[in-house]
């Protein structure tokens, strides 16, 4: 049973945020019809990673990941004829999903401000960098710009080296995945409400706010005056000795904040003499920069000869929240990921049989799943439009 199999989504989005949101719905069985420009298709078709030797426009692993389970329809929205087909198609659609700049939908004859004013039940969701009412001056903003407009950018990474600039986050698309998820949440709530009201509505999702919201624990304290605001790059950071340590074969991240962690760590390292020189409950009550430095130096000395997966397993059994710094390869090989089936194989006509990451939730009655590979450009044009043209 698929949870969203009754929903038909028209995906006009051409960016990672909108495509990811569409994928989250397709994973639960929504019929997602992706509108693409004839000849070129979505921009993500031309974004890395690429499969070597495969044909252009069908060789992107990014597109393949973001568009599983969807149908591709090519339609020239620059022409009157194309826009007329779009209008006819809309009559059969529950949700329009877009991530272009404000004004794009209006130019296609879809007016978000009229959403919910008729009996169609059409729900329109737009993901934009700063919200639908943002001034035109900020309509164009890439993920890096949004990340740095959210607070995370300026204050990241934690424990910054003052000699190097703030960073983009992890990979290229944290902003897009997070805001796509944020849109999917709002959309599901609106669709739940629609079940009784039979009314659609307009959902305006700001990427800047999606990211800023994720820092609510600090940001709400800051806006309320309970936590200092400042231009310190480390203003979001926590005190304490928690940090990364180099091992023989990689890195680990050690989090210690309470006496139980300290005791476990002592056992793990063979009760070294230096640990007895720290006062009781120092992690809670007696943190000083000198103690933190000293503790890190000693732990670093011991850790450098350890194997990361092995030391993590031993530490966890002693109640120490030690974590390995995993690479993509580590995660693929992780027995936990294999147990949960986080990666699944999908057959794609151009890319062949490949593994794909799935989603972080297991639903007992309506599990998510990848129904089909990402579509070739225009693969479903005839099938979808044949009923519409008539």
């Amino acid at each position, binding site marked *: 049973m698929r949870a*969203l199999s009754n929903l038909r989504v028209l995906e006009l989005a051409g960016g990672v945020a909108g495509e990811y949101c569409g994928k989250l719905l397709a994973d639960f069985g929504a019929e997602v019809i992706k509108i693409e420009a004839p000849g070129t298709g979505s921009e993500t078709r031309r974004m*890395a990673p690429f499969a070597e030797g495969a044909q252009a426009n069908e060789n992107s692993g990014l597109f393949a990941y973001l568009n599983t389970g969807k149908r591709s329809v090519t339609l020239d929205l620059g022409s009157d004829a194309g826009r007329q087909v779009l209008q006819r198609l809309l009559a059969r659609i529950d949700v329009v999903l877009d991530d272009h700049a404000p004004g794009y939908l209006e130019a296609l004859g879809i007016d978000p401000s009229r959403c919910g004013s008729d009996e169609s039940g059409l729900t329109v969701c737009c993901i934009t960098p700063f919200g639908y009412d943002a001034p035109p001056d900020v309509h164009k903003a890439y993920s890096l710009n949004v990340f740095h407009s959210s607070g995370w950018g*300026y204050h990241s990474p934690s424990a910054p080296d003052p000699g190097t600039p703030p960073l983009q986050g992890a990979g290229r698309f944290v902003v897009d995945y997070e805001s796509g998820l944020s849109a999917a949440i709002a959309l599901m709530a609106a669709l739940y409400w629609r079940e009784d009201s039979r009314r659609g509505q307009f959902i305006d999702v700001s990427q800047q706010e999606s990211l800023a919201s994720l820092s609510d624990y600090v940001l*709400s*304290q800051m806006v309320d005056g309970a936590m200092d605001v400042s231009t310190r790059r480390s203003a979001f950071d926590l005190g304490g000795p928690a940090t990364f340590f180099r091992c023989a074969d990689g890195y680990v991240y050690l*989090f210690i904040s309470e006496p139980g962690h300290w005791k476990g760590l002592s056992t793990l390292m063979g009760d070294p003499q230096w640990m007895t020189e720290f006062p009781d409950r120092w992690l809670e009550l007696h943190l000083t920069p000198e103690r933190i430095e000293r503790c890190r130096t000693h732990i670093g000395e011991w850790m450098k000869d350890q194997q990361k997966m092995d030391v993590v397993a031993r530490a966890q059994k002693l109640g120490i929240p030690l974590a390995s710094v995993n690479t993509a*390869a580590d995660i693929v090989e*992780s027995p936990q990921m294999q147990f949960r089936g986080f990666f699944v194989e999908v057959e794609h006509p151009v890319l062949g049989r490949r593994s794909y990451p799935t989603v972080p939730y297991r639903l*007992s009655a309506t599990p998510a799943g990848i129904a089909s590979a990402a579509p070739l450009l225009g693969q479903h044009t005839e099938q979808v439009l044949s009923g519409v043209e008539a």
Partner: protein
Amino acid sequence: MGAASMTPLSTGPLHGVRVIELTKIWAGPYAGKLLAFLGAEVIRVESLDSLDASRRFGVKDINAAPGFQAVNPGKCSIQLNMKSDEGQRLLADLVKKSDIVIENLRPGAAKRLGFGYEQLRELKRDIIAVAMSMHGQEGPLSYQTGYAPSFSALGGVCHLVGLKDGAPKLLNVRYGDSSYGSAAAFAALVALYHRRRTGEGQYVDVSAVETLASVVGDAFMEYFLTGKVPTRNANRHSEMAPHGVYPCGDEDWISIAVRTQDEWHALCAAMGNPALAADPRFVDRAARQQHAAELDVLLEAWTKPQDAQELGERLRARGVAAFKSLNSIDLVSSDHLWRRGFFQHVSDPARGEMSIAGAPWRLSLTPAKITRSAPRLGEHNDYVFGELLGLSEAERERLVAEKIVY
């Protein structure tokens, strides 16, 4: 008491949905907060016997803890000693009147308390039970524990943050819990939608590590397609150059991202250096990526004496995506975020009014209004035990005296 006398505590698309939170600290409460922002009635079950640490961080008054207040606005709080039989019975009665139960206790702990999925289902056939944990409820590593930075390390995020030749970094020590709460909230809503259509409830098992792996999902595709293990590379980007954060004055920064040739030419013109566009080192994107370090040096020298805000405006006027990197002062004083209602005021019984960071979406017909600050411990004992469960005042007094409501 009849339904007519019940006071609706919220409005929004989830009006009428009741959520019970058996949660701690941030991730579980963030999931509940999003549902509260959408109009659900969210009840945190608390107790002096096992008080959430975020009610104690940095304060003596458990009802004025800023960390707790940040993540729990608009919710209800009740007290129940879950170690007592009667406490468990009362929670069972509440489950019968609820739609969703969210817990982020250690795997197995909810079951030991009598509130694992099978037990919840006995109480209410169509309940939606959301269990949140670091690695998922079962499996060879499910016994392991950690905090937000652990999720980032395990999920592959940290490995992708930092300089090419440097150690891994945390995107931020605060990053992870709320993302994972968001994933839980989405899954809960899918389950709720399914229940609305079919009457069927279900169990939802959410993994923090998998959530963090999902924010670098394309890195796995790169590994699968090319065999190469993606690694950190500062601010480099496969589709853009220049792509970085450049200094302005002593402490400000500007983010500049260039994707097209037009944008590159516009940037060169703004730099008063149109010849740069024809320099073979920077003539197209591939060349600029190859010489990215040299390009960064040129840009840094140019941005350094300038004002980040003004420079951003000037570049954007030419079509270049450039924005001042907002620090926490910029953020809380942003006219845009206040005007849109992202930052908003809520009422607070002790202080009259306080400010919070609100929801990242606007729903045109069902704008949930968050009007109350986070609850005092047990603030809604009377509402829940009296109005919802129908206990008399005398019975409620006995429960308090016997430390069941504690």
